[in-house]
């Protein structure tokens, strides 16, 4: 068995294709692996004809296989459908029903890609795994601690989805694209002659290709024989006055304006969803502003932790520009209070809060209700 085999997680997209091509050109011995995560034909109600953004479609497996063949590396498709449903799809559905807005990509990174998949890669003989994520891993020369930084291309930076990575996972992981911007990656794809060089970027959550999460949850419930009508309820304002009815709490996320179907003169936004009463609370935009919240299951990445109030920039959703805040530890080391200098719009339970010091990812946790 050769030493130093590198497993490349290949999605069939251009980024992971370039990773495989690039690392092969750098002389690494490579095995390409594609995870089969979800059967796209399983829920006919939410099938999409869109050419992009479909993970695990036969097209993507075909593309990944073509790339592997083009580069000349061994390639395998591995089945993670059961694990993906347990670790990602079910929590995704349950989070919505609990009035939160989940990030399945982070769950997948934490519990599938950098956990069981990384273990499988090691099992087949690969000491390291490379992915197409836009992020950078460095090692502190003094402490030996692995640190994470935003990618050079800040518009593509994916560190928001990677806050759950542990030291032992980072020790075995390579993000070869972290130092490139997307145009360079495209150019590399052409230079390497990759069949996926002009393939579009995926935009949506991979198992909900048409982006309609509520329809996915409805279809999944129908398949499981669960009555989705049970999540219907009232739309109320912040004073508790009933303004209308809704078809299920999973149709709403904090800050949402569309789909309320209320005939009121002023624009109203979802302020919160209350699973216990199945109420959706709406209010004016100002009601969405919030300065302080708690995060749980905090994972520290570039630093071992905090013991005193610490200044940081905090990002509360993928497209949010990190805002200055003070992190305050609590008696529970995995629970941290975030206090923004300026209140931020739509602090959404279930989303991640990722703490930065400049480009350095300090860590992150999950926003509490």
């Amino acid at each position, binding site marked *: 068995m050769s030493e130093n085999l590198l497993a490349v997680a290949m999605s069939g997209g251009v980024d992971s294709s370039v990773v495989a091509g690039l690392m092969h050109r750098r002389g690494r011995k490579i095995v390409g692996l594609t995870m089969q995560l979800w059967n796209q034909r399983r829920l006919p109600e939410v099938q999409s004809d869109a050419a992009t953004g479909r993970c695990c479609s*036969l097209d993507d497996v075909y593309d990944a296989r073509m790339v592997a063949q083009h580069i000349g590396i061994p390639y395998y498709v591995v089945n993670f459908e059961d694990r993906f449903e347990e670790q990602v799809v079910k929590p995704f559905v349950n989070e919505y029903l609990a009035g939160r807005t989940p990030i399945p990509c982070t769950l997948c990174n934490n519990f599938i890609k950098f956990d069981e998949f990384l273990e499988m890669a090691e099992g087949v*003989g690969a000491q390291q795994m490379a992915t197409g994520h836009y992020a950078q891993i460095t090692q502190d020369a003094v402490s030996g601690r692995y640190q994470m930084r935003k990618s050079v291309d800040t518009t593509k930076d994916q560190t928001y989805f990677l806050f759950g990575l542990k030291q032992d996972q980072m020790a075995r992981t390579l993000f070869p694209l972290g130092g490139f911007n997307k145009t360079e990656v495209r150019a590399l794809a052409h230079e390497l002659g990759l069949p996926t060089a002009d393939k579009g970027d995926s935009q949506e959550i991979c198992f909900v290709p048409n982006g309609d999460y509520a329809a996915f949850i409805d279809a999944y419930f129908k398949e499981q024989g669960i009555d989705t009508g049970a999540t219907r309820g009232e739309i109320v304002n912040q004073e508790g006055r009933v303004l209308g009815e809704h078809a299920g709490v999973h149709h709403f996320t904090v800050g949402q304006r569309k789909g309320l179907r209320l005939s009121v003169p002023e624009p109203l936004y979802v302020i919160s969803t209350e699973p216990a009463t199945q109420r959706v609370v709406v209010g004016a935009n100002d009601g969405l502003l919030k300065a302080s919240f708690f995060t749980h299951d905090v994972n520290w990445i570039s630093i071992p932790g905090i013991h005193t109030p610490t200044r940081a920039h905090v990002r509360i959703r993928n497209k949010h520009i990190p805002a200055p805040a003070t992190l305050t530890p609590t008696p529970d080391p995995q629970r941290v209070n975030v206090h923004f200098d300026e209140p931020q719009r739509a602090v959404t339970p279930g989303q991640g809060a990722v703490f930065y010091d400049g480009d350095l990812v300090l860590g992150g946790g999950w926003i509490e209700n």
Partner: protein
Amino acid sequence: MNRFYFDHNATTPVSPEVLDVYLPVLMEDYGNASSIHHYGQIAKQKLETARRQTAQLIGCGPREVVFLSGGTEANNLAIFGTKPRHIITTAIEHPSVLNTCAQQGADVTYVPVGSSGLVDPDDIRRAIRPDTGLISVMHVNNEIGTIQPISEIAGLARAAGVLMHSDGVQAAGRIPVNVNELGVDLYSMSAHKMYAPKGTGALYVRKGTPLEPMLYGGRHEQQRRAGTENVAGAAALGAACAMVEWMDGGLRDRLEQGIVDRIPDVTVNGDYRFRSPNTTNLCFDGVEGESLVIALDLRGFAVSTGSACSSGAVEPSHVLIAIGLPAQKAKSSLRFSLGRANTVEQVDGLIEAVCASVAHLRRLSPAYISHV
């Protein structure tokens, strides 16, 4: 890297002797077997020679052999063509039987198999109803190699006036087959499991068995299978039948014993005695079978687990589930199927590779706690 093939139940290479028969038919004796002229007559001769050779292997008359595109079509024709209202089959059949039964529109009774993987003829007897039209039980299982008591089951079928089909795709060429001794009315064969090319198969149809065609067109194959005959494919199948080399179980036993002796917590799936001599299916506790297949492939050894789906991802074997293995044990199981080119040295190399890969995977597996 040297590569060694231990997946002959998936497919076999074309043997040089078969290729010597196959290629000249494609390039020289290429006539349409229905044509009047010389070319057609030569092709017809090749086709009928192949039919005699195929018939001889399974002990039937030449006119009882229908050539078609492969094992899947043979199974489809047997099931669709007999138009049964009620079918009895087993839970461990190949998908080309299971899915065809489900599509055919008949009531289907799936007889269970025990942990041995063997069907109890009494279960078949109890499942027979007045409207039962067909019993379909595979001769040799593709995943665990168990040999079913076909003659006993066929006896029950005959006594009840029910047609008996057996999928013999994994049996023909591996174990002696005589359709009269077995007492079957229909028997499926595939060329590519016996060192002939993919794309050819045969269905034995006992004289007098009512069988409607699935394809309509010309009057080929005694009006049972329309379409210009694949003469080269048939000739290759015929040649393969005429040149069968029987394997004894020696190499398989060496492999199985070598692994079981050297690796703890390995069990043999399915019946130990009534087995095709080329197949062993082993469960490695605490090991993800999929990882083991990849690890072995990266070391140059081709083996398999379960049945592959269209994307190439592996799903747990319905056969292993049917013989009572928990899903985790099914996922920890591998099939090794040997062929005539495998050598003692290759088998010993495979044992070494399996030992190293299983040890590595178990070191990483939190689920594995040695029982030794």
